[in-house]
């Protein structure tokens, strides 16, 4: 997979998402449920605005000094015994990974959920080399078993599947014979994956945060797969987006405190692991080698752009859960790996306007995302700015849209034409339902335009009766 996840155009993706009633119901349910949990959790903690001041300050401070902190992290990680690699783009990251696999003669890898590995298309590349790569996050595993389906949410990737479908898939692909109770299906997968963990040559994880002061990699997981991938295989490879740095463990406190609450409405995740180098000679378990691949892949471009603040993101997914557009189209509708308001703000810079201009259209600019973002990213302002760039600088909007807006400008800018045009709006009732009007009218009734303009009605009414009678 890469950043682009669909070959369909915006309209086709919308139709696909909107016609999937199960998907829409489960996303609405997830939004309501997790949002409620998150609110309760923050209410209990108190001072949400102050907490997010701290988290935003930390992330901004890191981005402003990213060159320094990255250098410090890399040096300290190396000192701790890790091997640090640098990859400018996806291709380079994959080359580094494949060399490690060849060196280790590795045939099997277990992977704990990581967005950046999806971004660079790691699974596909390793499979081409003949490596068996097993997703071990329960949701990701279910997607992988179901014909390599794609995640629809960054925290709950299999949100679009119901228990019946999951039972079917496990029965067809893995010989599961039980019922569709989530607990029983989870136990079944536990057994299968336990074997995978014990037999894998390499463990693969992402990196929630990298601690500059010590060279430690910090991971937040709930299922335990992250701990397995970093404890049992003899080699551990960390794929790290270059912006994921925190200066010290003390800043990590604030970031983890926010991440657990914003992502799933919990006070803490089950496991918060701090991994500093490979195992010591005196340890019996843990990886003998720890490789950290630090990946740019467009991030330095974001850093020097007006959208730098988007890199503050800690991947909690709360903007998606709050977004009314996401509620209807789900993750797949965005056609990109990162969806929701974050996706609309980030993807055009990472993947280019030409391929991704349309993602910025999936937003009503309501600003609900800004209100919940734990690191105060100006999300809807970024999306609006993208739209300006798309129209004015990149000129990617259609000629029909340009013509319509230029016509609108002419009407609005000339009082005589404006008066004449507004007097004629009633003719709009006769307009054929085509184009955007047709789309709009599909699920809604188009209101009838009254025969009289408000201004005319008001002028007539003025002074004719006592208004408040």
């Amino acid at each position, binding site marked *: 997979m890469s950043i682009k996840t669909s070959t369909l155009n915006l309209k086709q993706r919308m139709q696909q998402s909107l016609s999937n009633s199960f998907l829409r119901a489960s996303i609405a349910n997830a939004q309501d449920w997790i949002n409620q949990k998150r609110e309760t959790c923050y209410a209990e903690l108190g001072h949400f605005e102050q907490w997010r001041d701290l988290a935003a300050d930390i992330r901004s401070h890191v981005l402003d000094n990213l060159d320094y902190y990255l250098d410090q992290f890399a040096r300290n990680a190396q000192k701790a015994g890790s091997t640090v690699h640098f990859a400018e783009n996806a291709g380079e990251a994959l*080359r580094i990974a494949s060399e490690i696999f060849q060196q280790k003669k590795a045939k099997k890898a277990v992977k704990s959920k990581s967005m950046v590995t999806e971004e660079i298309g790691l699974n596909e590349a390793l499979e081409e080399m003949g490596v068996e790569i097993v997703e071990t996050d329960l949701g990701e595993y279910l997607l992988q078993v179901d014909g390599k389906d794609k995640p629809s949410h960054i925290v709950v990737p299999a949100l679009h599947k*119901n228990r019946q479908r999951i039972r079917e898939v496990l029965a067809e692909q893995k010989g599961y014979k039980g019922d569709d109770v989530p607990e029983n299906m989870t136990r079944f997968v536990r057994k299968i994956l336990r074997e995978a963990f014990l037999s894998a040559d390499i463990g693969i994880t992402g990196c929630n945060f990298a601690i500059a002061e*010590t060279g430690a990699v910090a991971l937040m997981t709930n299922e335990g797969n992250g*701990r397995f991938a970093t404890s049992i295989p003899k080699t551990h490879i960390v794929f790290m987006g270059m912006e994921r740095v925190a200066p010290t463990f003390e800043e990590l406190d604030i970031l983890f*405190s926010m991440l657990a609450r914003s992502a799933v409405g919990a006070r803490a995740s089950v496991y*918060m692991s701090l991994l500093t180098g490979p195992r010591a000679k005196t340890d019996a378990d843990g990886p003998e080698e720890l490789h950290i691949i630090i990946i740019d892949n467009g991030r330095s471009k974001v850093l020097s752009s007006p959208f730098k603040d988007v890199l503050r993101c800690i991947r909690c997914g709360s903007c998606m859960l709050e977004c009314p557009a996401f509620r209807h189209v789900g993750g797949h509708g965005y056609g990109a790996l990162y969806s929701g308001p974050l996706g609309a703000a980030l993807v055009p810079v990472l993947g280019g306007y030409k391929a991704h201009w349309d993602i910025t259209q999936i937003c009503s600019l309501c600003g609900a995302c800004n209100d919940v973002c734990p690191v105060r990213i100006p999300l809807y302002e970024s999306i609006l700015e993208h739209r300006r760039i798309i129209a004015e600088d990149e000129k990617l909007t259609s000629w029909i849209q340009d013509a319509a807006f230029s016509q609108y400008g002419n009407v609005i800018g000339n009082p005589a034409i404006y008066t004449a045009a507004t007097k004629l709006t009633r003719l709009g009732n006769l307009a054929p339902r085509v184009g955007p009007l047709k789309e709009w009218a599909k699920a809604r009734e188009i209101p009838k335009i009254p025969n009289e303009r408000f201004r005319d009605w008001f002028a007539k009414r003025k002074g004719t009766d006592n208004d408040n009678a």
Partner: protein
Amino acid sequence: MTTREQFIGTVRKALGRSELPAAPVPLAYRHTVHTDVMKGSDQDELARVFMDCSKEIGANVFETTKERLNDTIRQAIEQCRPGAVIAANDPLLKELGPALASATNRMVRFWNAGAPREEMVRFAEEAAVGIAVAKLALAESATVLFFSHEGCGRSVTLLPESNVYIIPKSLIRPRLTQGMAFVRKHKDHLPSSVNFVSGPSATSDIELVRVVGVHGPVRISHIVVHDM
């Protein structure tokens, strides 16, 4: 391949700088909301919050004294499936060792960093219960801190179906803020794996139904020892 200099150089240019800056002035926090949580609470209060939260996240809770600890561990283990016990090589547990084996009528083996890797992992995988002693505990989220070093491998708190954690009451702190400060204080001698563990492993990946026990332990017992 991109070298560190090249990579950092690109970042530096993106930030509009011509050379790597000196260490930045550490960030000054605008608020104290993180250090204010449960400020001034005594150990009794912290223990109460810790135990309440433990129950909420699905851990079994026991309270005991040092003298009765062996008996309490036995009670906690009795609830687990039959099978061997793997214990951290901790002075406290070592002291209890032989008595524990006879009291529970189970094979008790201590983590041995000198033994071959495969042997220790296999034993932990087959064991029914893992026992470990907390390095620190956090009241707010019922979190227990472990340093996974030679005395207590990563496997002890990960592979067995059940885990029993011994938490001296005096080691309970308000929240992650104190936990991370503790880790930072030990930064020069940190083991390769440090884990904050909050209850049994869990997921909500199928229809958002919370299921306890995914890859890590299914059952967790917190034993709070009052006079330690």
